[in-house]
Each structure stands twice: as C-alpha cells, then as structure tokens.
C-alpha cells in the first residue's frame, strides 16, 4: 500500500487530501499516469513529486509503505 497526498488545487480537483493505493512497487512516472487517468487531472506538467518528504524524479520507485506527495508549483513566502 502507498499513501498519496494532494495539496492546493489538486486537493480541490481530486476532492480528497489523501488516498491509499495498492500499486507498489511503481515508478513515479507510471504512478503519475495512473493518477491523471483515475482523477481526470490535467497534464501535471509542472507538478513535482515527493517520496517520503523528499523530491523524486520520474524514475524513482515507490515502495510499499511509502508516502507520495504531489507538489504543485509552490507559492509560499
């Protein structure tokens, strides 16, 4: 099982703060495709991904028990 977190406008789009998925192991790139399809999300071109609170790249693998977060362009400060 993996936990996927949504923030900001993605949280509004998905309608949930987090979902639990039974997809591990899966690459970030593949997970992204699944999420786009599942929630009819727009491209996510400028959305970053984090695994366990560290930024990840498309090749990185999500393992069982990991927490993935979708990070839209940030606007703090």
């Amino acid at each position, binding site marked *: 099982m993996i936990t996927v*977190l949504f*923030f*900001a*406008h993605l*949280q*509004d789009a998905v309608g949930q703060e987090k979902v639990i998925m039974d997809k591990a192991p899966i690459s*970030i*790139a593949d997970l*992204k495709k699944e999420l786009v399809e599942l929630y009819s999300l727009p491209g*996510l*071109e*400028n*959305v*970053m*991904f*984090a695994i366990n*609170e*560290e*930024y*990840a*790249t*498309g*090749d990185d693998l999500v393992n069982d028990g990991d927490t993935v*977060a979708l*990070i*839209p*362009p*940030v*606007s*703090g*400060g």
Partner: protein
Amino acid sequence: MNEKRFILTEDIINMEEVTNKVIRREAGAVTTFTGTVREFTKSKRTLYLEYDAYVPMAEKKLEQIGDEINEKWPDSMVAITHRIGRLEISDIAVVIAVSTPHRRDAYEANEYAIERIKEIVPIWKKEHWEDGEMWIGDQLEKKSYPTGKPEQEDLV
C-alpha cells in the same frame, strides 16, 4: 541551541523572537525579512489569504535552506518561521532572520533564503478576492517540469 529554528505555525509570528534565535556575540549583522500580506497585486484587491502546506516536508526544506546557507556563507546562522492558515492584510506570512559577522553576507544570504522558499518549500497560497478565490501557482513564473521531474539544480 534547543529551540527549533525552522518552523511552520498557525500563530501570529513575532519577528523579534525569530531574530533573537540568531543573535550571537560573534555576529554583528542581522538581517530580518518580513513578508506581509499585500492588499493589491497588479490592481487586484486581496481580502485575505490562506496558506496550506505539506508541514513536515516544508519544515525539512526550510532546514535544508539553512544548510545551504551555512555552506555558502560559513559563519551564518538562519531561522525561518512561516505562518499557515488564514491571514489578513498586513499580517506577517514569513520571517527570515540571518546573522553573519559581516553585513554584506547577511543581506545576500537572506535574499537567497526567500528565493529558495519560493522554489522548493511546499507551501501554497490561496488568494481570496471580492469576486472569487484561487490557489496561486508558481510565483516565479519561470519553472515548468515537462518531464514530470524537477532538474537537479532546482532541488539541491
């Protein structure tokens, strides 16, 4: 130094408290950046803001910015507090304090910190106007990740 120097909070930020965390006998210069909620952005009137954050990762990333600054400006000390939740006009959203032995460094390192916050810290701002509301994206308006992954230089 036991107090946490990189935090997110829902409480009002006391700028002096943040600054005091970095005042030291050996550092004569302290710069404090205070980011407040501005009423007008390009003639659009903001009523209030909401900040959301991925709290544990955001605090880690603030700490990373502190580490980066220690690398680049060896004798520096940094403290950053960012507020989340609902903020009214003129409320303080962020305070960054940097102390260094010499003042030039204190300005440079502080400006580096706010730039990095706008690049890598997972905090999002929702603006509320009279006629609507919106999550504000990339303020830098210069990043996009066509490969779905940030480049190395964006993260490190």
